[in-house]
């Protein structure tokens, strides 16, 4: 209790006024000062973000004026031939993210269900920790693993197997004009992204499913429902908006992931991919790979413009995620 300082003084028996005066002094100077310091730090978080947005706009202004919104509808990024376009990168970003989400979301959901409902609590804790560990591994390691393990597998086994069968006739699966064997491709990048966002979506979904009140579920079981029926008709409905929020968080990660994609997507900045096996590029990996190539002021400015576009896209998804998760928490009776 020495931190409080008062008890000791009271026992030593100084005049009562001294302690009170000290405490009044604290209130007059200590508290307001503390409030102001913490407030300043709290506002820093917001100021930093606003500054970032401002700097991005300021530095991309040259490109915005020069290229306008046509930037978004021009396909090729090829500054040497005077073509500044983001469309190929945007298409690549959309496709890789789509592949990642189609694989990761259902997997994450069943794993989250398993962790909350089917597994004994001890094992659930171990598995849950394992999932969170996977989320802590930096993306560069996934990229390296993809480069040395997944790319050869795709190139030598998986892609030939698909393209030589009847599946290769289907749209998105038939090799396009830029096909280079399929090792470095939209699909490879999407697969690694799926592995990367899986733990995030799983962990968030599990947290949301844990908020479903036990009594409600027990009522379901009490009526003779099977585990799946309780999950589908009670837990999932209850947790739906939270799971949507979790999906948006995963989506935001996949959209902005740079290193893993830069390793694997193939770096085709000129043409939009026509199939999942074509090499492509994404906005984030294009910025990473082309920044050092920028020679003129317009080059750099256009790359920052591209960063601004990515910033706006991810911000929209983050804001959506924020609102969905808040709604989920409010519905679950928690603090918003």
């Amino acid at each position, binding site marked *: 209790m020495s931190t409080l300082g008062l008890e000791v003084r009271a026992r030593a028996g100084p005049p009562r006024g001294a302690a009170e005066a000290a405490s009044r002094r604290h209130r007059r100077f200590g508290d307001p000062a503390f409030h102001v310091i913490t407030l300043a730090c709290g506002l820093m978080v917001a100021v930093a973000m606003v500054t*970032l947005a401002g700097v991005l706009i300021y530095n991309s202004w040259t490109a915005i004026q020069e290229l306008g919104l046509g930037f978004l509808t021009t396909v090729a990024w090829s500054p040497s031939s005077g073509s500044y376009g983001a469309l190929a990168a945007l298409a690549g970003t959309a496709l890789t993210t789509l592949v990642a989400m189609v694989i990761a979301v259902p997997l994450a959901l*069943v794993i989250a269900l398993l962790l909350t409902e089917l597994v004994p609590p001890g094992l659930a804790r171990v598995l849950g920790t394992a999932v969170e560990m996977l989320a802590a*591994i930096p993306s560069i390691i996934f990229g390296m693993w993809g480069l040395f393990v997944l790319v050869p597998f795709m190139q030598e086994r998986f892609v030939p197997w698909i393209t030589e069968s009847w599946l290769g006739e289907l749209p998105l699966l038939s090799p396009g004009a830029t096909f280079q064997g399929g090792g470095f491709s939209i699909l490879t990048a999407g697969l690694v992204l799926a592995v990367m966002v899986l733990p995030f979506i799983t962990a968030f979904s599990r947290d949301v499913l844990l908020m479903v009140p036990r009594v409600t579920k027990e009522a379901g079981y009490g009526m003779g429902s099977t585990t799946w029926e309780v999950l589908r008709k009670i837990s999932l409905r209850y947790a739906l908006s939270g799971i949507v929020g979790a999906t948006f968080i995963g989506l935001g990660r996949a959209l902005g992931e740079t290193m893993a994609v830069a390793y694997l997507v193939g770096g085709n900045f000129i043409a939009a991919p026509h199939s999942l096996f074509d090499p492509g590029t994404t906005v984030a990996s294009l910025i990473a790979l082309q920044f050092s190539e920028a020679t003129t002021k317009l080059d750099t400015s256009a790359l920052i413009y591209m960063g601004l576009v990515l910033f706006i896209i991810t911000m929209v998804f983050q804001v959506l995620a924020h609102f969905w998760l808040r709604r989920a928490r409010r519905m679950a009776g928690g603090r918003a």
Partner: protein
Amino acid sequence: MSSPSVAPSAPGAPSATVPLAPLRPRSHARRKAVDGLIKASAWVAASFGIAVMLLIVYEVIRRGAAAIDWAFFTELPPVVGEDGGGLGNALLGTLVITIVAALIALPMGFFGGIWLAEFGRNGRIATGVRMIANVNMGIPSIIVGVFVFAILVEPLQHYSGAAGSIALAFIMLPVMARTTEDILNLVPNELRESALAMGVPRWRVTMGVIIRAARSGLITGAVLATVRVAGETAPLLFTALSSPYWLDGLFGPEGFFGGPTANLTKTIYDFSGMPYERMQELAWGGALVIIVTVLTLNIVMRLIFQRGKEW
């Protein structure tokens, strides 16, 4: 990573209304079969997820272990195409860049989190700051790299380790603020109230009582936030860049403020793309160091946090 805090539901909180599905008779056998099928697929999916993770960790250990020896930690990388050498300069650089980033971001995030939890609470400003922090945590780290390039590297006309630190600090700040807030919110209100009732000024209640009660969680949060940025690559691409030399002094061409600074992640990225076996081996060694550090610190911090939950 931060996960949504599971707030205990207040007594009397409205429970969500779940719309009733119309009753339809189904055969018992079919219901049991569907249930079994779903359970089986959940097990398969979970085993698959865990298997991929083990596969990645296994691959990094298998390929990385060969590179780890004393020289790996103490020597410069070899000239391209030659044998020997290590990643000593990159390890040192990452350590310095990360520590400086932590020194900038952790105190600021800590006090910002205190403000959110103790003063701002559910006010309009705090709600706004909280939302901006959440959004900020989700912006791609490459954009932070571009931002720091625009404010520091381009005006000063040179890359530097310090610019890398600023970029990492930028990423850590909202993480630390939100973690601090979440953890302070776990401290029971009775503790605040009883300290205030004794006439203790507000700031001493916070710093002496609340922080003390929450210290294991705060330490865990700070360490995990630091480890998380230590593995970042994208923010360093245009800020710290990379260097084949040791970090040397402050303002010289190899100094922390003066020029490109070697760091582990960028070096791994560069080396793994080179067609030389020794370079790739060093890159795997670097990956192993990262994975071992990240996993060990995560596990240790979790244990500390579990044990420290004494309130």
